[in-house]
């Protein structure tokens, strides 16, 4: 059974994934995602997994101590940012005035 992925699905996913896609790319993805999801859908028929703990991983934390000296990495990191102003990374305004 071919898993149905619609054009609307692709538009919604691209929006969630923050990726601009051309109409050609959308058409190809509609087809590709459909066939890949059909393949992985074999998993949904498996029933021998009731009661299995899915969250077997655990967090490992280090102590929050011994920070490096403030500012020692700033210049190197800022040098890689596309837009900077003094010691800041520049982004566009996201809150507009009424």
């Amino acid at each position, binding site marked *: 059974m071919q898993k149905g992925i619609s054009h609307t699905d692709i538009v919604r996913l691209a929006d969630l994934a923050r990726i601009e896609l051309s109409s050609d790319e959308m058409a190809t993805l509609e087809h590709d995602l459909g*066939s890949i*999801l059909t393949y992985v859908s074999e998993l949904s028929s498996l029933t021998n997994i009731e009661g299995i703990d899915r969250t077997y991983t655990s967090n490992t934390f280090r102590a929050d101590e011994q920070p490096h000296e403030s500012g020692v990495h700033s210049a190197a990191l800022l040098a890689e940012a596309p837009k900077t102003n003094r010691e800041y990374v520049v982004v566009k305004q996201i809150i507009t005035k009424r």
Partner: protein
Amino acid sequence: MIIDPTTLTAHTAHKHLISGDFSARELTETYVSRARQHNGELNVYLEIFDDALTAADKIDARRARGEALGPLAGIPIAVKDNILIKGKIASSASKILENYHATYDATVIEKLTHAGAIIIGRTNMDEFAMGGSTENSAFGPTKNPHDTTRVAGGSSGGSAVAVADHLALLAIGSDTGGSIRQPAAFCGVVGMKPSYGRVSRSGLMAMASSLDQIGPFGKTVEDTELLYRVLSGPDARDATTVDPTRVTMVAPRSPKTIGIPRAFIEKGVDPEIMKAFENTVVQLKNKGYTIVDIALPNIHHALAVYYVLMPAEVSSNLARFDGVRYGLHVDGEDLLGDYVQTRGRGFGREVKRRIMLGTYVLSAGYYDAYYGKACAIRRVIRKDFEDAFAHVDAIVLPATPSPAFALGEKTSDPLQMYLEDVFTVPASIAELPAISVPAGKTTTGLPIGFQIIAPYFAENILFSIAKDAYVS
């Protein structure tokens, strides 16, 4: 003496360097010049480092002063382009990071430098390690040195060819679902994925964090093991690394029994691959191993599990590329416009496909059916392996279902490309160490890989059997 890169290994070069038969500078010059000559045709290196000779000079000077040197002192090595080397470009073969300079060294780079290795360049790969042919590189595919109309495999294709074509003595790559073992098989070299938690990923660009491992390539099992020993060990900067003294292991013994999951390989394998596989099994039998059939009841679901979990993790990990803090920036109307245009322009086709797929399987309404289920089946597969290892010391499989395919053959059908991973993905899902060793060639001269999988943290068993399995 005249240096012949085609016959040297890291071990023999090490001996020559110690006896003074040649210097680290002479050795490095030989490899750098050969790499420059061959790179136009094979597209192995995205960059060959001009300062490699300076590093070699330092090793020579230290040797002349009688200083104690590391096990890789003066040995030229190639590094996959998704591993950070401070001050060098690290692009992951992507347009989005084309001009990104690493601001720190990956832990494995610190270890290599400490061991005295000479890093001679960064190697081509599938963009962000997504692919099995190196055709997804934004900078063109790497060609297979055994037949330049065929792929090198991937995603660590450049690193595999660097060793296979004698353009470095050793190389490192990363393996998420087979990205070291499969190109090693296609190119006729040894490639190994350590147990999950053996090698620090600090400074490796994350693709699928529950699967990614850095690992070694070498011409021989001995060389590969030497490099593995340098790379491995717990690291405070990667909380997923494991202190080996805290792993419960079976008592060390010499491996005797090898299992084959016959039901898993009876269909869909190229006859020449199958013949080479059986020949290697016979060779192991002749060396005193007992070979038994085993059942891994859920192993045939491993690939589907992988193609749910991996894209889910990809979609999360690659959210960091937003055009704000590093890499490409494309200006849009507003901040959201910056994001979507930067990512739309910067990512290649396969990367977009996997981000979209991951977004789908993690989205509301589908999470349980795909991601939740895949996590549960992953546990079942891991348990199947544990049960099998109660009876056998290692499990063997072909590394790939077919030899290196033609350039362009599978690029239009992503599912066909994904099926290439069928034999490498199970060990990744189960977090187990696995190695591909050369097992002869097809009648047309294409290399074939034989894969060995050992219990968790039993890399010693892996290398021990690999030495007996290797067919030169």
